[in-house]
């Protein structure tokens, strides 16, 4: 089946090309020869930071912009009027030169022949928050035990061929890989040891498909596959006393050496069919069917030495050697169908159904676990563990109906109903007190309503409301009895002045006796855009948001199994604005100054202030060159975690060259 799919995919473009050869004959010979032309801009220069105060790890986690010479942006378009190989190639790159968010996108197109796109990103993931995963914080230690410093690179490439109007084959390739270092925790029953780890993972995905386009329907068939690997290694070779600050049964627990490797390999084959159709002018149909079969195989090896205690064997031991093999399979079947039916010009009926099913027959196939007094002494405990099966079965279904009525040219009303249901069975978490398996169900009915108002294109208003009641749910914090409301309005006060307002509300309540879960979130926002004379000399855009979040829920204190309350509060204000000033033309360009930035301030469970003001200037210095200057200030302050605050100035200067 797999071979057949590949053969079909490879042959289809050739067959389609033959069929369409007379229609797609290149017109290069008849087109007048013309020079290729290159247009665009290139921004380059240097950035430096000054006066970095506070926590540099948090600065790197939140901002992470570096110093030095940079290519800030390049936006180039190459056109070929002769259309020999391409009509146009667009290349856009951002933040090159050791920056944390580097991107490159290339689009090449020749109309009626092909489209090629590739997207590359290189993102730095640095995360070291002192208050996160840090049991020694009370002793003044600011090193988190869960940190990472990764580079994640992604490339996504796609080629669409247009041999004729009816058949379009396409091919795609994407790679997502990340590597770097970090700190994580090795847990040995009664003590935890923060150790260095190395991470390296990669996923390659290949896909190819054919789009058939007929008068009344479109069908896309896609066959794809991915190859995955994830390699992690923890190592340590010094005496390490871990987080347990006291002795246990009169002995100090410590670790002198650790070599743990975690190797996961896997693959996935998936087949997909997507169809859209308009069999009659009153009816649109959409459907999708997918089958995928991801699988992973894991090899885990661990050698650790020191002085440990095994709760299972109830003995002290000096060395542990463990080899474990496991596998995970996840056949996944998914289907979706939707229809829009227009029985009358002003009446539309929407219907959609979706089903999703995972079945993961997982298990550990081999587990050798040997405990010794030292690596050179005989085994004192452990052995081969029996194979373990850890199944996971999950179904999710959703059915939704909506009716829309254009009651007047300025008013549309909507009403509907959604029913979501599903169930799951899986192995309970380790040390579970509720048995080896756990299962859950969910059933939820939601009523839907909405309206849209349009008055002479100047005033637009809309509101959506959803109210639901669930009789069963997976989690205590899931949506249970809830109401959602969102409303928005846009008003064009003047030709140059637009204002808008948004409001949203989510109320969720789980009224069962022990839960008492109450969640309420409200968001208000105002926007303004002022562009006199189309923004020729001055423009102003700004928005202000105010949100409140309130959550109350009971939880159990594990030691006494007594009830306590988890309270989370947040009142947040966010404002962002940009004032753009343009001046009379100099050197065939307008000098420009932008002032603005954003401010965030919150109170409640984690009061935080985060300010990012910015000022930019673009001054023409040559007919095709502008001098750029930018100042930014980053300031993070936290009332309860003051050691996580930082502030710094960033300056950037450079040239913008026009081609």
């Amino acid at each position, binding site marked *: 089946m797999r071979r057949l799919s590949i053969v079909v995919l490879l042959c289809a473009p050739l067959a389609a090309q033959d069929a369409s050869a007379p229609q797609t004959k290149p017109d290069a010979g008849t087109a007048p020869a013309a020079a290729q032309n290159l247009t665009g801009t290139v921004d380059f220069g240097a950035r430096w930071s000054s006066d970095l105060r506070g926590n540099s790890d948090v600065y790197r986690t939140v901002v992470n912009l570096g110093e030095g010479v940079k290519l800030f942006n390049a936006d180039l378009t190459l056109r070929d009027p002769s259309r020999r190989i391409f009509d146009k190639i667009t290349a856009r790159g951002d933040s090159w030169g050791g920056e944390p968010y580097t991107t490159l996108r290339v689009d090449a197109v020749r109309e009626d022949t092909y489209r090629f796109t590739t997207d590359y990103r290189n993102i730095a993931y640095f995360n070291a928050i002192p208050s996160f995963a840090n049991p020694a914080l009370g002793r003044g230690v600011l090193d988190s035990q869960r940190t990472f410093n990764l580079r994640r690179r992604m490339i996504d490439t796609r080629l669409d061929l247009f041999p004729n109007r009816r058949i379009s084959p396409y091919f795609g390739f994407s790679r997502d890989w990340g590597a770097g270092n970090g700190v994580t925790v090795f847990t040995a029953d009664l003590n935890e040891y923060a150790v260095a780890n190395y991470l390296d993972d990669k996923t390659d995905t290949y896909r190819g498909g054919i789009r058939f386009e007929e008068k009344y329907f479109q069908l896309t068939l896609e066959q794809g596959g991915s190859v995955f690997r994830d390699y992690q290694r923890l190592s340590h070779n010094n005496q390490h006393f871990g987080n347990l600050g006291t002795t246990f049964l009169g002995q100090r627990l410590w670790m002198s050496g650790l070599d743990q490797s975690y190797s996961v390999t896997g693959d996935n084959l998936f087949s997909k069919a997507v169809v859209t159709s308009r069999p009659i002018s009153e009816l649109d149909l959409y459907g999708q069917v997918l089958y995928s079969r991801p699988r992973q195989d894991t090899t*885990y090896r661990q050698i650790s030495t020191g002085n440990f205690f095994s709760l299972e064997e109830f003995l002290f031991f000096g060395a542990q050697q463990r080899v474990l093999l496991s596998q995970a399979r996840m056949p996944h079947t*998914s289907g*979706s169908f939707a229809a829009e039916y227009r029985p009358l010009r002003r009446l539309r009926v929407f219907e959609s159904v979706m089903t999703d099913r995972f079945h993961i027959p997982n298990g550990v196939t081999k587990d050798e676990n040997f405990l010794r007094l030292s690596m050179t002494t005989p085994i004192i405990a452990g052995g081969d563990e029996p194979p373990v099966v850890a199944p996971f079965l999950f179904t999710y279904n959703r059915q939704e109906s909506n009716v829309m009525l254009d009651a007047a040219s300025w008013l549309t009303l909507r009403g509907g109903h959604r029913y979501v249901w599903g169930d799951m069975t899986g192995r309970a*978490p380790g*040390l579970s007190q509720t048995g080896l398996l756990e299962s859950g169900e969910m059933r939820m009915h939601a009523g839907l309503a909405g309206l849209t108002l349009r008055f002479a294109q100047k005033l637009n208003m809309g509101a959506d409301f959803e109210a639901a009641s669930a009789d069963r*749910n997976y989690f205590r914090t899931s949506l249970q009895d809830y109401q959602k409301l969102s409303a928005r309005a846009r008003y064009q006060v003047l030709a140059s002045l637009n204002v808008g307002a948004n409001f949203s509300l989510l109320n969720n309540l789980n009224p069962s006796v022990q839960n008492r879960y109450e969640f309420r979130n409200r968001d208000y926002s105002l926007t303004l855009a002022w562009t006199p004379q189309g923004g020729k000399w001055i423009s102003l855009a700004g928005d202000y948001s105010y949100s409140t979040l309130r959550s109350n829920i009971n939880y159990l204190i594990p030691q006494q199994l007594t009830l306590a309350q988890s309270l989370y509060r947040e009142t947040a204000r*966010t404002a962002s604005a940009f004032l753009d000033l343009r001046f009379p033309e100099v050197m065939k360009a307008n000098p420009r100054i932008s002032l603005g930035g954003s401010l*965030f301030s919150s109170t409640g469970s984690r009061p935080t202030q985060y300010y990012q003001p910015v000022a930019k200037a673009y001054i023409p210095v040559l007919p095709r060159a502008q001098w750029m200057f930018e100042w930014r200030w980053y300031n993070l302050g936290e009332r309860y975690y003051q050691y996580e605050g930082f502030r710094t100035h960033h300056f950037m200067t450079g040239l913008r060259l026009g081609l």
Partner: protein
Amino acid sequence: MLNSQFLSAPPLKRGPRGGGLSLFLFCALAGAVLAAAQSQQPAAPKKATLVGSSTCQACHEEIYTAFQKNAHAAVDKDKRRGWEGKACESCHGPGSIHAESGDKKDIVNPARQAAAQADKMCLSCHLNQATHAGRIQGGHARSQVSCVSCHPVHKAEGSQMLLTKTGEINQQCASCHPQVWAQFQRPYKHRLPEGAMSCVDCHNPHGSFLPKSVRTVAANEPGCLKCHGNLGGPFTYEHSPVRLEGCTACHVPHGSANPRMLTRHEVRFVCLECHFNRPAATPEAAAPTLGGVPPALHDLRNPRYNNCTICHVKIHGSNVDRALMR
């Protein structure tokens, strides 16, 4: 005579409670539909005919010139589409009356039409695109956001009549979703303000099978796994919320004041709010929700137990350890 017949007739049986209200609502809806259907009957106007794009150019030179660099210009040049030299009228309808009167009322303007009408016109050519397969489930279709709200049809730039620079995409989405954009101004967020990502990296604005129009990747996996592929599993020991409720069970992907974009300021609360179930005497008496309470060795007074992910490092799922510790 008639009156006496009615008076002597037995009283009608009343339906179930609420039936009258349903009947009234049904009649009201039917009346509204019929009234709407009648009100839309046009008053036999003079029939307009096609005049060709060159006639439009005479008055709308700027739009015409920009349009020539636009992907829709192919409609004007291509015989096979059936609108050669008449691309303007393929969307705006026959323009002879408008050309004579110059009155904007005499020409169809999709930007002024109700979303459903504008969309129907666009979809008459663009329905057959795989990206639209989740349109019905998408919020934009439900909320009457038409194609022309985001796609500047006349604009010269861009072969696909859509924005491709991340900053411009984000700005466009933020113009209608300012409260979402406000969340990205928080310290812990995805890197949208920096231009490393755009809204459409995670959402498909045309709609998706997943809630919130979340984009699907590869084998219909949530768009989050495009970048976080190492967290997608399958795992030998799954952590059920990841599979059942997705990333948003614990994270606020748009931005948060809490590290790692968590929903709570301390990790233990994220976990303990679900891990609540006590041992049940019988399976029938088991708690209706998932998540057993942690064993008593978890002494919350000790800082070692205040952040569950210190030990449970493989919180998204493990291939080795049932307790997600390695």
